[in-house]
């Protein structure tokens, strides 16, 4: 249940007014009535004591004028209900064993009243007694005073309380209106203005500002709205500027993407260029077979024609059989060249971006040979020992073959480059004897493993290694240690992105002058 501010103010005022009304209408008159009764009791008792004392003194002196004076002390009081003289007589009880005091009303004024000796106070009369003892008589003055005056006083107090309560009630209502006007109205106006500001209307202002704390709040609110309005204008201006900047940035980003794509394509073409020699060598080999067997077949067909002319059919058949065998070899090597060309085309094509089940061992072996042949095409003197240890249980895993092939090609090229550089450096330092039996044997090893639900491809070499001060930078774009023109610096960076895109990891471990090992981890499923 939600109680608004105006209701709270009215509830508070009503509570205060009711409390005050209760006090003035009930508590205060009751207290005053009790006080009046108490005072009246005391007064009547004092009067009784005074009369009894006067009677006592007067009777002792047999001064009846004194008695008269004492009685007249209360006789003329308009509140007097009665004044009686009670006589105490001592006599034997009926069994004559003890004395009993018999109390009788001796005389009463006025005579029409008939109080009893043991009479007690009632709501209408206050009765008090005071003892006296003289040689004439022992007894008590019994004084009865009516409570009409008290009742009248109570009524007056009650009326006064009602009047005061009514005045307080009216004042409460007036205060309620004033408070509601001075507190609730400005606060509600402030609330409404705040709501409209919250809805976006920053032209709202609190108009009637009282000269108090709520007024200060209103001023602060107006200042806040003004500041908000100013800030919003500034923000709008900056938004326009930002929109322009964003547009520019988008344009720049588009250009960057294009540039990036071009760079990737350049990198791809660069690696393709490196492959070309290897590919050419790979194609050259089957082509040599094709050419040689074609030459052989040509000679065999000439020989077969001569044998036909001679009519030596057995020899013809034997030659025909050789021709057929050669044709099969030509066909085999032609298909091999065809496969190489198709592979090259596949590498040069853009990635489809679709993963497909791929035999990672075949892919690793194929690109290892391509890379080696490419390097050999450039430097015929270069020899390297290639070691492979493929886990045949891996089977096919879901990868984008073009991308992973590019990663492997990068790693192989770097490995071959490293061992070649190491070999060149060592060849400058070794003696002729050491050249005859070289201590360093350039080796590139490739292994695959499947521990658990992942596949690990390790490419290691015993090249010159990577210095520790640059090992953290090798995956950064455009970072390269190769001479200008030999590397773009994008190979490892792209490899890193490709492996990450496959949900895998690529790590490097190296010791300068000893080895480098790249570990590629790919999810198996």
């Amino acid at each position: 249940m939600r109680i608004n501010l105006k209701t709270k103010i009215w509830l508070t005022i009503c509570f205060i007014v009711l409390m005050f009304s209760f006090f003035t209408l009930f508590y205060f008159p009751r207290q005053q009535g009790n006080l009046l009764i108490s005072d009246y009791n005391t007064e009547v008792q004092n009067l009784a004591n005074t009369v009894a004392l006067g009677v006592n003194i007067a009777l002792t002196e047999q001064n009846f004028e004194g008695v008269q004076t004492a009685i007249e002390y209360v006789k003329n009081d308009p509140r007097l209900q009665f004044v009686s003289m009670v006589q105490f007589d001592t006599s034997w009880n009926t069994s004559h064993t003890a004395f009993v005091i018999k109390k009788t009303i001796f005389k009463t004024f006025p005579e029409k009243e008939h109080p009893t000796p043991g009479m007690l106070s009632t709501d209408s009369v206050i009765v008090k007694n005071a003892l006296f003892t003289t040689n004439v008589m022992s007894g008590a003055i019994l004084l009865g005073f009516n409570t009409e005056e008290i009742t009248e006083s109570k009524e007056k107090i009650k009326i006064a309380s009602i009047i005061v309560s009514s005045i307080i009630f009216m004042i409460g209502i007036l205060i309620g209106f004033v408070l509601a006007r001075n507190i609730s109205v400005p606060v509600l106006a402030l609330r409404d203005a705040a709501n409209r500001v919250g809805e976006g209307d920053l032209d709202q202002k609190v108009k009637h500002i009282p000269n108090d704390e709520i007024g200060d709040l209103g001023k602060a609110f107006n200042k806040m709205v003004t500041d908000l309005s100013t800030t919003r204008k500034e923000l709008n201006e900056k938004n326009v500027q930002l929109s322009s900047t964003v547009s520019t940035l988008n344009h720049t980003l588009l250009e960057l993407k294009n540039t990036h794509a071009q760079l990737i394509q350049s990198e791809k073409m660069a690696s393709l260029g490196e492959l070309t020699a290897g590919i050419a060598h790979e194609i050259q080999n089957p082509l040599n077979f094709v050419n040689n067997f074609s030459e052989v077949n040509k000679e065999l067909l000439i020989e077969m024609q001569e044998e036909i002319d001679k009519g030596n059919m057995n020899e013809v058949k034997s030659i025909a059989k050789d021709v057929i065998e050669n044709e099969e070899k030509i066909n085999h090597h032609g298909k091999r060249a065809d496969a190489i060309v198709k592979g090259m085309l596949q590498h040069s094509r853009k990635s489809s971006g679709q993963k497909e089940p791929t035999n990672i061992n075949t892919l690793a072996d194929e690109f290892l040979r391509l890379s080696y042949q490419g390097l050999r095409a450039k430097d015929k003197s270069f020899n390297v020992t290639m070691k492979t240890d493929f886990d045949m249980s891996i089977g096919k895993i879901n990868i984008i073959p073009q991308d992973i092939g590019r990663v492997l090609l990068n790693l192989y090229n770097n490995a071959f480059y490293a061992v070649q550089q190491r070999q060149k450096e060592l060849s400058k330092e070794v003696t002729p004897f050491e050249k005859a039996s070289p201590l360093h044997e350039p080796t590139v090893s490739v292994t695959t493993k499947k521990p658990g639900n992942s596949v690990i491809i390790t490419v290691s070499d015993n090249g010159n290694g990577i210095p520790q001060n640059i090992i953290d930078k090798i995956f950064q774009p455009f970072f390269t240690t190769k001479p200008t023109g030999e590397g773009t610096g994008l190979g490892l960076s792209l490899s890193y992105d490709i492996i990450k895109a496959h949900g895998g990891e690529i790590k490097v471990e190296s010791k300068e002058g000893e080895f480098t090992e790249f570990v590629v981890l790919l999810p198996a499923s």
Partner: protein
Amino acid sequence: MKKQLLPYSLVNHFATKKILWLLCLLCLFFTSKAQTPSLMAIGNVLGVPGDMKFSELKSILMGEKQRWKNGDRILIALMKTNTAVGKATSEKVYDMSGDELNKFWLALVFQGKAQAPKFFASADELEDFVAQNPGAIGIVDRPLTGSEIKYININGQKIL
């Protein structure tokens, strides 16, 4: 001897005792007769009549009459009941004991039915009061000492 002596002595003893009792009674009679004061009614020379009947006097002294014929207020002056004159007054005039007289006046005064009488311890004070207050009436047992007071003949006699 013993038998004779005893009756003789007893006879003498009873005779002597009777005589003594008679003598005592006679003494008491005469003593009481001699100690009873002779009461006289006195009044101020102004307002108080010189003659009245005993019944009239009794009525006045019992507070039944408040004013004299000339309109003066009747003021009663009595000797205190613990005095011989007071006691005699209560017995002769009021036919009451002293306590009864006191209660009689207490009742009247308490209810406002009568003007309270003045009680005095000495005759001088009583006579001074009567002399100084016109309409005052009192009972004394001795001759007058002032000129402002007079005897009131009751049933034609000075002595009550």
